[in-house]
């Protein structure tokens, strides 16, 4: 009896917790979304995609950085002016660019991984759209990485510790991935009309096609580039605005009309210092002359992006785009444009004889800082298409695209010529007049190998290494396996 008691007691004790696995199982707190509760509905996927778009906005350097490095624009103060200072592995602006693009890529990887695990209740239509939009974002991110850095890590999976030691993927393979992603995006994404008014601003089928065409240009696959461009034109969603300004600023209400293909969305009045709400840009303030008061920029003009006078000087007097540039000392909408104040005693460079781009000034609305930044607009698409056509030997068609942009600026058509250098110089000038201070300008020079021409024209030193950004030093400190571009 006693023994029986003993054994029973011991057995009971030992078996009481045989269901131990359940005992330690808990749901995480419901006030937080975790892997257990997130990515279960289309809305959750959607909000994560929007969070990914947000990174476009968090990278605040789309115009400034690209403007500076192409040397069309200069800061007023101590930010390094010339490429010897700018193109260094410790340059913050370069690492910010690197980081933002990789954040977009990483978030896209999370989305794609979670889409595979998503519950069956997610409709096929939702799946296709989510995949398309996500692959657009990832394609766009690596598009930016490949064209800036060349060889770089290509990550297609969600975080794992092994990623901390990866090596660079050759640039060519990155382009293949960009093309693969953008191809899916161009198939799956809705058009602007299909998105509807509420979703204006998101990536569209046309945006995917425009970047796909551009990506093929890096691969020099002109056939495919032409095909993607034709697909875009066939959508019949885009047209040049009536005036150069309309192509940029005045038509921006509502934005995303005919000429716009893909833009970073900024909100008018959307910059609130106190709450650090960053839905507005400060591009108006950056580009306005120092000391300009309220009307052009609610935050004042900072004169942080001044143009050299050579740009306007190079323009045909007939060119309507000249009116988008205003010269120091001139009067613009009743205000005299002033020379930027030079700050600091160590910075001796004179900044007299400068111009200002008024592209981002929305006039006297007081809403200057809502200017969207175009990442791709139809005018640029047409200039790309012109290049594609010319490379295919379709000279006449190529000049037709080029002249379309010229005629909008009230410039006479150029005569068709099969002279390659003549066409390419014409294209370069046209880009400079049309797209100055816009984000893609720099990469046109590096892609086409015309950076030296630009530097020569500007009388500044040129080094072949400038064709690629340096991989940020902080990254190579963390992962010594990372490559570095030649010359850095």
């Amino acid at each position: 009896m006693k023994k029986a008691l003993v054994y029973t007691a011991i057995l009971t004790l030992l078996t009481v917790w045989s269901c131990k696995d359940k005992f330690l199982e808990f749901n995480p707190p419901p006030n937080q979304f975790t892997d257990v509760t997130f990515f279960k509905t289309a809305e959750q996927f959607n909000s994560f995609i929007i969070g990914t778009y947000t990174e476009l906005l968090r990278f605040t350097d789309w115009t400034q950085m690209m403007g500076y490095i192409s040397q069309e624009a200069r800061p007023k103060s101590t930010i390094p002016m010339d490429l010897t200072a700018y193109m260094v592995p410790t340059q913050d602006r370069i690492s910010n660019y690197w980081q933002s693009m990789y954040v977009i890529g990483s978030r896209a990887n999370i989305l794609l991984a979670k889409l595979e695990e998503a519950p069956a209740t997610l409709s096929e239509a939702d799946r296709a759209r989510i995949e398309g939009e996500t692959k657009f974002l990832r394609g766009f991110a690596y598009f930016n990485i490949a064209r800036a850095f060349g060889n770089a890590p290509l990550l297609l999976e969600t975080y794992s510790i092994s990623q901390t030691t990866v090596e660079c993927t050759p640039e060519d393979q990155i382009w293949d991935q960009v093309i693969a992603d953008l191809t899916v995006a161009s198939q799956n994404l809705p058009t602007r009309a299909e998105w509807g008014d509420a979703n204006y601003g998101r990536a569209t089928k046309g945006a995917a096609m425009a970047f796909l065409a551009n990506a093929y240009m890096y691969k020099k696959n002109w056939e495919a580039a032409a095909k993607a461009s034709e697909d875009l034109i066939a959508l019949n969603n885009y047209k040049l605005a009536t005036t150069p300004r309309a192509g940029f600023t005045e038509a921006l209400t509502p934005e995303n009309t005919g000429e716009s293909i893909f833009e970073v969305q900024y909100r008018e009045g959307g910059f609130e210092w106190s709450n650090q709400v960053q839905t507005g840009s400060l591009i108006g303030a950056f580009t306005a002359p120092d000391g300009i008061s309220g009307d052009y920029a609610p935050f004042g003009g900072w004169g942080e992006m001044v143009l050299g006078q050579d740009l306007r000087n190079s323009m045909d007097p007939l060119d309507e785009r000249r009116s988008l540039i205003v010269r120091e000392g001139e009067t613009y909408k009743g205000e005299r444009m002033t020379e930027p104040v030079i700050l600091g005693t160590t910075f001796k460079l004179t900044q007299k004889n400068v111009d200002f781009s008024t592209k981002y000034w929305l006039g006297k609305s007081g809403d200057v800082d809502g200017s969207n930044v175009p990442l791709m607009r139809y005018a640029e698409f047409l200039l790309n298409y012109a290049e594609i056509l010319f490379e295919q030997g379709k000279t006449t068609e190529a000049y037709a695209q080029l002249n379309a942009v010229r005629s909008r600026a009230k410039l006479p058509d150029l005569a068709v010529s099969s002279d390659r250098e003549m066409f390419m110089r014409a294209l370069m000038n046209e880009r400079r007049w049309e797209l100055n201070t816009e984000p893609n300008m720099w990469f046109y020079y590096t892609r086409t190998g015309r950076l030296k021409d630009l530097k020569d024209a500007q009388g500044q030193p040129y080094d072949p290494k400038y064709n690629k950004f340096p991989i940020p030093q902080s990254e190579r400190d963390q992962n010594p396996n990372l490559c570095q571009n030649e010359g850095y």
Partner: protein
Amino acid sequence: MNEKFTHLPRAILLTMAFYMIIPLVFAQTLSMDSPAIERKKLQKQSLRGVLLLLKERYQVDIVFDDKLVNGRSIETDVLNSDLSFEEKLSSILNEVGLRYKKTRKDVYLVMAPKADKKTASGYSDKPDLTQDSLEATANQAAEKETFKGIEMQVAVNIRGRVSDENGNGMPGVSIVLKGTTIGTSTDSNGDYAISVPDEQKNGILLFSFIGYTTAETPINGQSTINVQLMPDIKTLSEVVVIGYGTQKQREVTGAVGSVTTKDIAGVAVTGLDQTLQGRIAGVQVTQNSGEPGGNVSVRIRGLGSINGSNEPLYIVDGVPYGSLNAINPNDIERIDVLKDAASAAIYGSRGSNGVVIVTTKRGVAGKVQVTLDAYAGIQSASRKLDLLNGPQFARLANENLVNGGKDPNPAWSNPSTVPNTDWQDQIFRPAPIQSYNVNISGGSEKSRSLVSVGYFDQGGIVAQSYYKRYTARINNDFDISPRFKVGLTLNGAFEDKRGTRTDGGNGSSTQGGLITAAVSQPTIPLVAPQEGLFSLNPDGSIDPTGNNYYGYDGTVFVTNVATPVWYPQGLSHPTYAYEKLREENFKSQEFLAAAFGEYELIKGLKVRSAINLTFYNRNSESFWKGMPVPILEGRGLYGSNAQLWTGPNQGNQWNWINTVSYGKSVGKHNLTALAGIDALKGTSQGISINTQKNPNDQPFVDGALFSDRTVSGGAPGEFALLSYLGRVTYDYAGKYLLTANIRRDGSSNFNPDGDYQYGVFPSVSVGWLMSEEYFMASMPFVSQLKMRASYGEVGNQGIPAFQYLSIYANEGNRRRYPLGLNQDPVVGFYQDRIGTADIRWETSTQANIGIDAAFLDNSISLTADYYVKKIDDMLGEFPLPAYLGVQNNRIIRNGFSMENSGIEIALGYNRQFGDLGFSTGVNFATLNNKVTKLTNNETGYVSSNISAGDDGGAETRTKVGEPVANFYGYVTDGIFQTQEEVDASAMSGLADVKPGDRRYKDLNGDGVINDRDRTIIGNGLPKYTFGFNMNVNFKGFDLSVLLNGQAGLEIANQTKYWLSHMKYSNTAGGINNGFTDLLESWTPENRSNTFTRNTHDAARSNRWFSDFNIENGTFLRVRNVQLGYTLPEAISRMVRMNRARIYVAAQNLFTFTEYSGYDPEMGSRVSNGRGNALQTGVDFGRYPVSRMFTGGINFQF
């Protein structure tokens, strides 16, 4: 990996092997018999040694009275003869005129010659006592006492009562007439009666009880002899509480320190953690804030973690406890601290920071006893800073302005007439403290109860702070049958605390009360705030127009100009701001119900089941009252609106522990085994509410409260721990000791997918009680000598739960993406934290060797330990390359490592000289803390911001090879005396540097002073901690003294950031008060190498964080002095009291230190309710510990 440590496990194994081998060698030597040797004369051998040798060889017990044996020796070598054992024994004893009696098989009693017996006919009312007690003694083998029988003729009857240190009757005390076999024992009330032969009426009675010092009382013909026994704190037969059981102190092989109720009686403490202060070597107790009920950190053998918890696990009567203040210190019977891994391993994943086991008092059978303990007293600040008074301030303030090229302030132009307010006197005030405890104990042999009720009320010496606690406890024990025991505990506690913010905190704010008071201009007159409205002119005089107000936070501002001007900009009115405008409240209710049942199934086999339920309800609120003045533009958050942050938080926990234990002795082999399952589950639910924009300061009760509120939290947190545990102890003859523990813990904190939730924590410890060996017999002055060695592994799972899951958060207001035709900002989600699937507990491996010794009849005791504690898998932030796109480019992973090593020594002396009882103890510990691994990046460091403002980036840095949280800053190099020195220095490029400004060393020699010239300038972790205590009692008087201290550390005195300079802001009135050192400021005429120039345009670099801010943090504090008097029983009996003691005490009476701030007992800055290890030893104006004088009573009815 650290080279030294690689060899450590081997070193320990060798040491352990050494300990094991020595006794074996001796045993071997002994068993090499040489049968052929003849009897021959040898050198003299001590009788005692020979007897022990025989005992050893023949595996018998030989019981003898030391008095018979000691000092005698034999010369004949019979040991190696071929005689039988009994013949040998007989032969040996004959040689010295003794004999033996075989009391049982294998038990031999050494006795005086038979001749004595003839004259001694047994006379005793308990004739079997001798035999019984000797046999019992013999069975225990450790007892060495025996008694001679003496014949008596006439009896004298003696009666009396034996009481313990608290005056409670002690049942079961044995009373023996010295030198005889006559004896008895006390009954359940502690009363006794004994008859002694008439010829012995001037004999001596011996009163003895295990764990108490034996009293020798001369009879002197008295017929009533009452005796009070005092606990023998150092006696090695003391029982200590270890995890899930108890162990005799003599058998303990781990490193365990203890504090008992008598150590802490009458010491005014808030919580039981404070009672450990200065008592145990290697246990550092620091009040992180001196405010009543303030945070206390306990570090057992140093820091156990960088990012996780550093607090030990508290087990109260077997229940894990989070809220220590819910335990009334008066209810504590004893506290045992498990310091080494071998002892703590039974608590597995919670044992890494050591375990504190608290045992509360339980009911004692007997008539009902009521104890009243009460004290009351007064507290005050023990130190004030040496600051400028009004006239001094006025003179220096204008000097500061004029030197800086500004106009002097006319209000300060005549220093002799300015107001002179001492703001420190305003913020400090004397505060009362009182404590009342009633304790009722009693019951029958089979049903015992203790009921205790307590009230503790401590006022704060700063502003409005206070702490009150109400506690009640019931402990019941029922013996349902001799085999079946049941116990029940109920404990309830209410806490009511009001704190105040004294700490200036990080950043430029001076929002702490102490700092605000210190920097406030003494020329501002002291005006009583009336309804929050009173009026001052910019010069501080009262403004009859009423246009100038103290603002919302007490800031003085001026409204009668177009744009409000703050005057002095940003400064608050100290008493107004901290007394009237803010409340930091904490209220808590906590309940515990616990029950256990224990049944002895068969002899030695016990099954025990315990269930513990706890419930708490806590609410912290921070209330800023609004100012009934118009809202001012530009005040932003600090308008006249009241604001309330409140965070009710509830939780409960159950814990079910089932254990089976078995003990068995076979011959000299003693074995115990324990196996158990411990399951614990808890939930908590918290919410935090912030409301503002209320029209005035009262309406928090109506709906208006919630008109503009944000609510966060509200999530239930859940937690479970499931553990399987086992322990085996084995000893051979009480000499060779072995304990092995193992625990397997499963924790809900970790990933259920994969093998992450469960971990196994083993430990082993061995001991050798050398004093039991025969060869120690020749050293009678050694009462006890034990060598110990242990090795074990424990964990720290005190990390936030669910780290293995990714968290997705919305970008909230900060980042939205404008979409749609109207570009409405849409809130997106992102991955806020990436789940680390393989996150686990931190592991700590500890090796310990130690020695316990007692000398001269246990009057001197020594415990010494050396340990090496290696903590691996510590959680840390690992930087990641940005291309991974992980939020903040960081991930929390296991992987940091740290090592602590140290020596701990405790020395005690305890002796009774007639009426004078004296005991004293000293403990001392060294601690060497070193980070051994941080990230995969060798140059990496962990930084923590300790900046007081614009001080050039004050931080602590934690680097490999260094202790945690080094202060990191500039190194001063005197003061610039001439412009040439400035121009020639590396600081010439810095703004405003002129003669009279501080010079820093260009450590990297690049010709420029910038943040790369910073280096390690100190560390806030003490390398040495020590304590000293002394107790003296003489007749009714008792005196106790406790000192503690620490050395080998620095304090970063950030109050100097504000007080070494007068410029507060750019405005003319922007002058703050400072140290009187400013009187010796550098001037071209009065050059100084210590004090910078006093001018409004002094270089900002003067305030950079440097070795100027670093001070020696060594201190020795007279923690407690207590003088008591116990009334003679005759008097206390008259008022129907068993015992009446009155006492006076002083706490924190003196502090010996070089530190110039308020209080060198700095601890760590508290964040999220616990001390932040990375911010240790930083003084932002910490609430100082108060000096306290109390008077109290202990009455027993």
